[in-house]
């Protein structure tokens, strides 16, 4: 039996839209943070990838906004707090980045995010009793599935890096 | 018997005899009667019961140093008094009153050639119920100095009030007995009567005036870690800060004390701590932080003999180097040095004012001699230097804590000011305060911090300048009083001589110093430092005449006027 997904309770379409918006908004913030990290650590390629991912998630968020038409959507989304461990499904793992990470790594991270989001909406579909919520959640499932496929296609462009990817012949520098 | 303008007496005793109490009472009574006075002391290393000598000088006019030797010694006993060495040297013209059962005269006293008279002080004390030997000694001292017994009695009443009437009565009785026992003694000199008092007078120590100067300057928070000989500053501040709506807080160590006052100052409260050499060494890192983050704080260093633990109860002038040069990196800051018990008030207050105006740490280099000496002084005039800090009360958007501007002082946002949020940092920073390792910001901020000190107008307070002539004596701190009296005698003998005593040691004042040296051909530097720190400081920063000599030695013995006179005499006309 599918568990009710961990996270804010969804009792209505309005709830679902708020949650969905929040998921995208958090993803935007997270990818932006990672892009800033990469910029600070001079990994330009990854900076661009994360900025692109942030932009993409931003577009998803705007979509949901248009879909909703609710002027209070943003506030509702902001006030949600029930994510386990404080991380919403599409937030890339902050602990999984590395200053020398490659595009393959970033896409793997993104893949995890999209899969988690897909799982989340799937379990909403499975567990909700509200037919409208079910219908809309199913649409989100399709959306996320498309995102997952997109990431898989992108991954074909980037081979898995060899074991030496984190090698840095310079030793660490003490700063303070 | 000749009238003298100055008379010096020492009361020596050990093991709880109460020699210091006797000296304090004598001083207070004499000064209440209108004389000026100065008292220091010398003690053994024990916490209680050790050997002690109260060293008192009374005079008809203001004095800032001790005489070259004592005219009168009253020895309750001489146990371990050899330890005092030349500190209790008596003149050959002098009079020594000695208890025959009090042990052998110390060598320096025995060979002085002074008259020695025996009075059985302890026996007399024992003959009075609850009689104490120090009161007998006090009675003898009253007879020899001319201080009125009734004035002494009122001081005793005041000081022993909490010990009860029994103790007071016994003390009066012993005082009278001592006076009677000395009735036939001829001191060989009489202290000239005091002029009628026209000024308000204080009886106060340098450490106390330091505390008062701090509060007058605006200090309302002090963090304390006790250390000899600075603890009295903190002890005086504890209740008095509280009465002024401020607070003193004891820290776990000097590292905490200095950081606490930096934190308090960051929050907007003028703050101070007091320590001695070892404590200042610990505080140096944090002083660098206050310099870099431009946070005003005042640190009083009551110098004692060093290095390391040194001689905690003795004075020296050997913390000049660490105060001026001790910070790592280039860290311009302010160092001031009071010149007397009275000057501790002005100089500390000025130090607070400078710290706040320039947003910089200020070190006040006092020393054990003036810190712990008790003096009768004319009430110092009120001084207008109250600390005022340039603050950003209503920071505009884009506020920059360390903005470059003419004069180098940038307004400081105090927590609570909306829009002024910044992070104070010891890391090199840009105008906003954000850490940077860039060349231009580092240079710009170094320039700013130097400019704010150099652009400031310090006025005449930077030094004491007296006299004229081609010969000048440069000194600082507590030696100013010694040199002044020595030069009075030199001038009285017909020789012109100048006194130059800088009060502001950092930032250096080349223009003013050169002006003070205009026409000087011979310069004598006088200081209490084994390594001649002040002489090397003068050489490093100022243009000196070709002919320079130094009179320098370390503690524990004070430098005397006659040493200065002798050095000048040796130099010839």
């Amino acid at each position, binding site marked *: 039996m599918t568990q009710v997904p961990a996270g804010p309770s969804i009792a209505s379409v309005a709830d679902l839209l708020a949650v969905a918006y929040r998921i995208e908004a958090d993803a935007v913030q997270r990818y932006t943070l990672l892009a800033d990290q990469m910029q600070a650590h001079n990994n330009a390629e990854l900076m661009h990838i994360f900025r692109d991912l942030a932009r993409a998630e931003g577009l998803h968020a705007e979509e949901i906004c248009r879909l909703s038409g609710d002027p209070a959507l943003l506030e509702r989304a902001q006030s949600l707090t029930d994510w386990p461990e404080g991380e919403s499904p599409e937030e890339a793992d902050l602990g999984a980045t590395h200053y020398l990470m490659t595009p393959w790594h970033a896409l793997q991270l993104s893949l995890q995010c999209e899969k988690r989001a897909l799982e989340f909406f799937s379990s909403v579909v499975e567990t909700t009793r509200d037919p409208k919520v079910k219908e809309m959640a199913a649409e989100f499932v399709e959306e996320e599935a498309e995102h997952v496929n997109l990431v898989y296609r992108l991954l074909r462009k980037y081979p898995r890096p060899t074991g030496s990817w984190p090698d840095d012949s310079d030793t660490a520098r003490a700063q303070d | 018997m000749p009238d003298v303008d100055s008379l010096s007496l020492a009361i020596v005793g050990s093991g709880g005899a109460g020699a210091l109490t006797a000296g304090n009472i004598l001083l207070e009574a004499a000064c209440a009667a209108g004389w000026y006075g100065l008292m220091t002391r010398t003690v053994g290393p024990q916490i209680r019961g050790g050997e002690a000598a109260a060293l008192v000088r009374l005079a008809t006019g203001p004095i800032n140093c001790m005489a070259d030797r004592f005219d009168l010694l009253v020895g309750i006993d001489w146990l371990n008094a050899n330890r005092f060495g030349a500190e209790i040297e008596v003149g050959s013209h002098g009079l020594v009153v000695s208890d025959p059962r009090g042990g052998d005269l110390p060598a320096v006293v025995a060979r002085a050639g002074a008259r020695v008279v025996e009075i059985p002080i302890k026996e007399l004390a024992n003959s009075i119920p609850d009689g104490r030997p120090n009161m007998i000694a006090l009675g003898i001292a009253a007879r020899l100095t001319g201080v009125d017994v009734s004035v002494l009695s009122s001081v005793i009443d005041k000081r022993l009030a909490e010990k009860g009437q029994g103790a007071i009565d016994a003390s009066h009785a012993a005082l009278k007995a001592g006076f009677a026992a000395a009735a036939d003694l001829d001191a060989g000199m009489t202290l000239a009567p005091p002029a009628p008092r026209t000024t308000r007078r204080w009886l106060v120590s340098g450490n106390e005036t330091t505390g008062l100067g701090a509060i007058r300057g605006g200090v309302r928070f002090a963090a304390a870690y006790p250390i000899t000989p600075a603890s009295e500053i903190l002890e005086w501040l504890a209740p008095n800060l509280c009465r002024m709506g401020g607070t003193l807080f004891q*820290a776990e160590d000097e590292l905490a004390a200095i950081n606490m006052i930096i934190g308090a100052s960051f*929050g907007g409260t003028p703050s101070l701590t007091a320590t001695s050499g070892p404590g200042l060494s610990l505080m140096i890192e944090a002083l660098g932080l206050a310099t870099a983050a431009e946070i005003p704080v005042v640190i009083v260093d009551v110098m004692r003999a060093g290095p390391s633990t040194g001689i905690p109860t003795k004075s020296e002038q050997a913390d000049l180097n660490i105060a001026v040069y001790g910070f790592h990196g280039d860290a311009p800051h302010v160092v001031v040095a009071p010149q007397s018990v009275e000057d501790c008030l002005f100089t500390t207050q000025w130090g607070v004012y400078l710290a706040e105006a320039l947003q910089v740490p200020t070190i006040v280099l006092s020393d054990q001699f003036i810190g712990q000496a008790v003096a009768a002084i004319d009430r110092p005039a009120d001084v207008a230097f109250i600390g005022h800090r340039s603050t950003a009360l209503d920071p505009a958007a884009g506020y920059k804590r360390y903005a470059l501007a003419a004069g180098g002082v940038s307004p400081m946002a105090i927590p609570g000011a909306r829009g002024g949020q910044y992070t*104070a940092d010891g890391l090199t920073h840009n105008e906003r305060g*954000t850490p940077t390792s860039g060349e231009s910001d580092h240079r710009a901020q170094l320039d700013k911090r130097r400019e704010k000190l150099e652009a400031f107008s310090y006025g005449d307070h930077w030094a004491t300048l007296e006299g004229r002539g081609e010969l000048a004596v440069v000194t600082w701190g507590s030696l100013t009083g010694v040199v002044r009296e020595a030069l009075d005698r030199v001038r009285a003998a017909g020789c012109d001589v100048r006194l130059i005593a800088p009060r502001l040691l950092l930032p250096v004042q080349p223009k003013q110093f050169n002006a003070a040296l205009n026409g000087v051909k011979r310069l004598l530097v006088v200081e209490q430092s084994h390594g001649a720190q002040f002489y090397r400081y003068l050489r490093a920063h100022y243009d000196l005449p070709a002919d320079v000599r130094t009179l320098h030695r370390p503690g524990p013995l004070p430098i005397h006027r006659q040493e200065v006179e002798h050095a000048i005499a040796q130099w010839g006309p």
Partner: protein
Amino acid sequence: MGPVMSSIEPRLTCKPADYKSDINPIWCPGCGDYHVLMSFTRAFAQLGLAPEKTVVVSGIGCSSRIPAYINCYGFHGVHGRALALATGLKLTRPDLTVVVASGDGDGYSIGGNHFLHACRRNIDMTYVVMDNRVYGMTKGQPSPTTEPDFDTALSPGGTGLSPFHPLVIALASGANFVARTFSGRPNETADVLVEAIRHPGFSFVEVLSPCVTFRPDERAWKQQVHPAPVAATNDPAKAARRIMTDDGFNIGILYRGERRPYRPKIGGSSVELASLEQEFEL
């Protein structure tokens, strides 16, 4: 009058983003401190703290860089002395919310003495130590919480010294609130910070925050942390025993004490300056 609470006046719309400054952190990607920063901003938002009445004080180390990344007043002091700075500040400005940020090196080694006395004094402030069991900023030396067999350049083969228990030390020294959290659970950490700041007196929160560069093994912490099996106690001895017998990964609020926070004796209204000199008058 009840225990001192700094004035926490909630603002109407407080979002964590309001508390982020525009300075980009220099922490390594993957560092636990990014999560801790999130927890700080979430906690401040939850409390509705006025940025201009909040001060984050730190020492030296990676964790100590945090004040500049937060929109509030900050003090990045010298190594080990953050608690002393904060003490002077809070004593003279009890109206401010003071949070102290440190690491296991800055806080437990050079800062150890000040740690004891801050707990003892119980002045109202919150002390957050980001413990990564290593000196990160200076390239990987052992800290007082490092395991004895951890190999480093300064201690080849490990120090052979047992780490001590900072939480127990805090309890023994008188801290009024003791908690342990994990950076990888930023919401939980934020909630604990909120309670810590609200709790009167000295609140101590140790945040296990992995160092991705020098302790990659700490990635395993994510699986190792678990909620403490019992709710917080108000008995310090009980709390101490629990902590000394746990595996070091119990997270949650472990102790909530009831000591009154310290307030300095400050005279009511100030007297005339001239009255201070009366004792000197002859």
